[in-house]
């Protein structure tokens, strides 16, 4: 069995930042592996360690700079990686769900995996839609927000738990091939070992353009325009206690006594 993991590099914003137009100024951003994708990689690697999956391949849409993030996935145990990039994607503020679906679907068709794992959402744009969209596009089954996966795939079924609201889980059986969007907490992602990091440098990282995977430029036109970005208005009546830790904690102490919840 083959597993393919969609891995995204996301941008984290510093505590203090400035907005330039419809973007956060670059100097306030840092890149990291999407938190949810870290759990997806771990799940695939555990499937391989359990002897169920033979090969774990990752796919990333992104420019050369994100190769460090891809190497993190390789260092944690993925076998090889594919990176898709193209000049036409350069300058796009955001790549929308439909465009990602086209690109990832083309790679998945070529790779023909039995199982595709993605994160539930990307920590930066939080669309939380790509995995299910890809599944539908390919005619695969899918499960969104999966926090448990049985590792036996009896009768060609993936038995999953989907984490619903309010601490309730839905138990669902899905026919393979399937796309699962992985929720945090499903496993304990490992840290890459030094050996893993060294090995990752030698693993295959294949770079492809849209034409290499047969996606026409016209299929990836973004369907919306980002027209504004701003900081949300803060509730104006928040009282910020000023002073050093001693002073602020006594103000908090006073409030707790006033409310009668602590003595």
């Amino acid at each position, binding site marked *: 069995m083959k597993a393919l993991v969609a891995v995204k590099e996301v941008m984290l*914003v510093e*505590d*203090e*930042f400035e*907005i330039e137009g419809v973007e*956060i100024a670059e100097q306030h951003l840092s890149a990291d592996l999407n938190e949810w994708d870290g759990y997806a990689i771990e799940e695939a690697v555990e499937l391989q360690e359990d002897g169920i999956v033979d090969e774990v391949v990752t796919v990333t849409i992104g420019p050369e700079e994100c190769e460090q993030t891809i190497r993190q996935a390789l260092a944690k145990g993925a076998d090889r990686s594919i990176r898709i990039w193209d000049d036409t994607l350069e300058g796009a503020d955001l790549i929308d*769900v*439909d465009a990602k*679906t086209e690109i990832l679907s083309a790679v998945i068709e070529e790779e023909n995996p039995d199982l595709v794992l993605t994160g539930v959402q990307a*920590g*930066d*744009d*939080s*669309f939380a*839609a*790509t*995995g*299910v*969209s890809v599944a*539908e596009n390919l005619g695969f089954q*899918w499960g*969104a*927000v999966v926090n448990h996966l049985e590792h036996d795939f009896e009768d060609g079924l993936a*038995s999953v*738990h*989907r*984490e*619903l*609201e*309010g*601490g*309730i*889980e*839905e*138990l*669902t*059986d899905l*026919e393979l091939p399937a796309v699962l969007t992985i929720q*945090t*907490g499903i496993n304990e992602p490992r840290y890459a070992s030094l050996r893993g990091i060294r090995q990752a440098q030698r693993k295959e990282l294949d770079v492809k353009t849209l034409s290499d995977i047969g996606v026409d430029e016209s299929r990836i036109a973004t*369907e*919306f325009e980002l027209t504004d*970005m*701003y900081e*949300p208005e803060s*509730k104006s009546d*928040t009282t*910020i*206690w000023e002073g050093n*830790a*001693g002073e*602020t*904690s006594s103000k*908090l*102490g006073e*409030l*707790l006594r006033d409310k009668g*919840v*602590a*003595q």
Partner: protein
Amino acid sequence: MTDVLAVTDHRRGDLRDISYELITAGRELADETGGDLHLVIINGPVDRFAQKCNRVGVDTIHTVSYGEEFNHDIYTQVITQLYHNLAPKYILTPNSVNGLDYAPAIANRLDLPIVTDTIDLETDGKSLVATREMYGGKVETTNQYEGNVVVTIRGAEWPAAEVTGDAKVKPFDAEIDEDAIGSTVTGFEEAVGGNVDISEADLLVSIGRGIEEKENLDLIRNLADTLDATLSSSRPIVDNGWLPKNRQVGQSGKVVTPEVYIAIGISGAVQHVAGMKGSDTIIAINTDPNAPIMDIADYAIVDDLFDVVPELIEEFQ
């Protein structure tokens, strides 16, 4: 004319609150250009649900009974067929875990764009302007779409529609292709943990990823003991296995309504806030003055928790 099709959410025999919020959001959108609001209820006790959802603003309620519970294959088939019948401009669904399990599939099948987790919507009849957050709530963005769109809405952003209305209720004769059903819901399970019920506490000391290391949790336990408070947390603490699942506050954890909620090193992501915004008084201790938790806090200390918490413990010893 902008017609809207909104999809209700239910689970284990109960309509979920967002169904009524969808009516308000859908009505607003339809009103902006004088269109109709259609509601669809798929599976479960549809007639009972239709009665409950019959609120002012809804024009037609379509019911489809094809099993008790949610099944994304059935939802996808039904909504696609209804869309072809009614030709609404917008399909509105909840941004719930189930909404996210079918809305992207519908968008793909119908070749429509999808915008998720919206908190405000506006249309002039031609284009749609959707407001949503990015970077964990640090910024808001507006996004403009032309043409028809699939939209998921965030819970608790629109008021629930309350007044009983006189919508037409029509069973919709969907043709379900059984061969295309590749998923089966086999049951439900409730999260288990210890016997502490954080939803009963008056004072919650809640800790988030700002604690950094498991060992540092002792400091917070110490604070909770000193204040005689109950210890709860954001999700990453539970994901790391540092606290049991029944201590998690939020959308996928518990909803709490204490007198005082002290959020320590918690950013205030929407899924966390969903579980604690009903607290009487909210206090945030966070180094980041721009953290979204600051927007809902009544009082805030912008400082390092490792400086503030020891002082606070001393204060009460």
